């Protein structure tokens, strides 16, 4: 079995104790969220706070817009051989009032997506290298049936 590890440290949970989630920061003074987490400064120009808590962001949001990648992106993207196109979605999180991008789960095409559709965060394999599965967050249409929850497998 390949080992499973995040492709980037500290950006999301694997959902060992529940469902996976993105990890953002929340400013202790003004409440402004950031993803990926900010540790140095608050983006609000009227806030000088340097205190942030790490928080799990909403696991569900609505599609602000979407597209796909028909051609293999250049490195440092690690593409499967042969290349398999994937969709990307920009997803609006109502509680945090921000939009987060991410790949959409495999097997979904642009014909399956609509602006405003609800999607849910999952953690899935981005690429496999040297017997390691490198994981990343992806958006999965809520209507697509039971969520992949790789965090509870392997």
């Amino acid at each position, binding site marked *: 079995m390949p080992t499973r590890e995040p492709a980037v440290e500290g950006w999301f949970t694997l959902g060992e104790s529940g469902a996976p989630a993105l990890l953002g920061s929340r400013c202790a003074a003004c409440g402004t969220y950031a993803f990926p987490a900010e540790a140095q400064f608050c983006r609000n120009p009227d806030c000088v706070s340097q205190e942030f808590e790490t928080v799990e962001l909403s696991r569900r949001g609505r599609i602000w817009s979407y597209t796909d990648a028909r051609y293999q992106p*250049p490195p440092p993207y690690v593409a499967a051989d042969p290349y398999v196109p994937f969709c990307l979605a920009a997803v609006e999180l109502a509680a945090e*009032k921000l939009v*987060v991008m991410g790949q959409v789960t495999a097997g979904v095409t642009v014909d399956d997506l609509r602006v405003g559709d609800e999607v849910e965060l999952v953690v899935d394999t981005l690429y496999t290298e040297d017997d390691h599965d490198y994981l990343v967050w992806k958006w999965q249409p809520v209507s697509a049936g039971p969520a992949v929850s790789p965090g509870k497998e392997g």
Partner: protein
Amino acid sequence: MPDDKRIAVLGAGMHPWGKWGRPFVEYGLAAARDALADAGLSWRDIQFVSGADTIRNGYPGFVAGATFAQALGWTGARVSSCYAACASGAAAIGNARAQILAGLCDVALVVGADTTPKGFFAPVGGGDRKNDPDWLRFHLMGATNPTYFALYARRRMDRFGATEEDFAQVKVKNARHGLANPYARYRGEVTVDEVLSSPMVADPLRLLEICATSDGGAALVLTSMDFARRHGGGAEPAVTINAVSTVTPSFPNTVIEMPNFSTDSAVAFSGEWEAGGGFRPSITSAAYAEAGIGPEDLDLAEVYDLSAALELDWYEDIGLCGEGEAEKLLRDGVTSLGGRVPVNPSGGLSCFGEAIPAQAIAQVCECVWQLRGTAQGHQVEGARVAVTANQGLFGHGSSVVLSR
């Protein structure tokens, strides 16, 4: 407009865009020499050289101002080099303008040039850079530049009913505009069918609707109003720059933009929140305010059509029409040559491809020729006021207002 707010454009020069594969210095040098000849000035008259940097051509690209100065021959002229992604050219114009308006120099040369690799732009430099969002967006999402453009295009279709044919019509229009432009890389008519049968790159954007990466160079000779009058035997300069906007976004910037993973969060913002309220409209509104004009005064605009669909966003962002009305403007021919406000009479990025540090300068060169009435084969008749608009990665606004 008072003299302490405007500067004269005495010379404009460009090296043709293409995929020549030669050192960028060569293109910048050719453009600079053309601009100097156009101005009727010699290199020794230049007191300040303002270079727009290229980050894909090694150290000489990071110090472009000095690189061009050395190529022209050291004269002791003062120098600056700046990088602002796609807005680098406007930033270089802004630096030269500030020197002139402050009275620190009378005559400045602005130069930008680029040599570009083939295919998708990839992050610059090697190695794993897990703190660089531009590296990470490729690594973690495979999000190339066209995928971001495609998000905006899809959004237009969903919100305003834009169609694939509308996007194709923008390409058809710009291809027609660029036919007679000697500096354009692509000069050929394109039909809607040809656009719609070109390969899909990032749905809904097709190959012919996405800006290529090009080699090219552009240069301007800018002077104080007093110098221009002395040089012109007392006559007023033909073309002036009345505003340069290099604004940054205002918080919260709620449009997802390259190379980011997310927008700003609007929770601490007390106003009305809408995902997608954005940066682009503020770029030209700052320029209009500085120039004391409004969009109703424009005779033409050069905007950054990184994709055919993005040109439609710009119509609204620069104030030519209200939200959701761009498709109608296009269909009514308002933005075509012969229409009320032709947009991208040069042919735009659609015909040029992008030579990053040269592009915003090339937009201004085109406006200069339009305002002089010398844009043969693609002239906007009787043009008096022109604007350029563009946005650089990492929050760089770029807009220049010119008039005759």
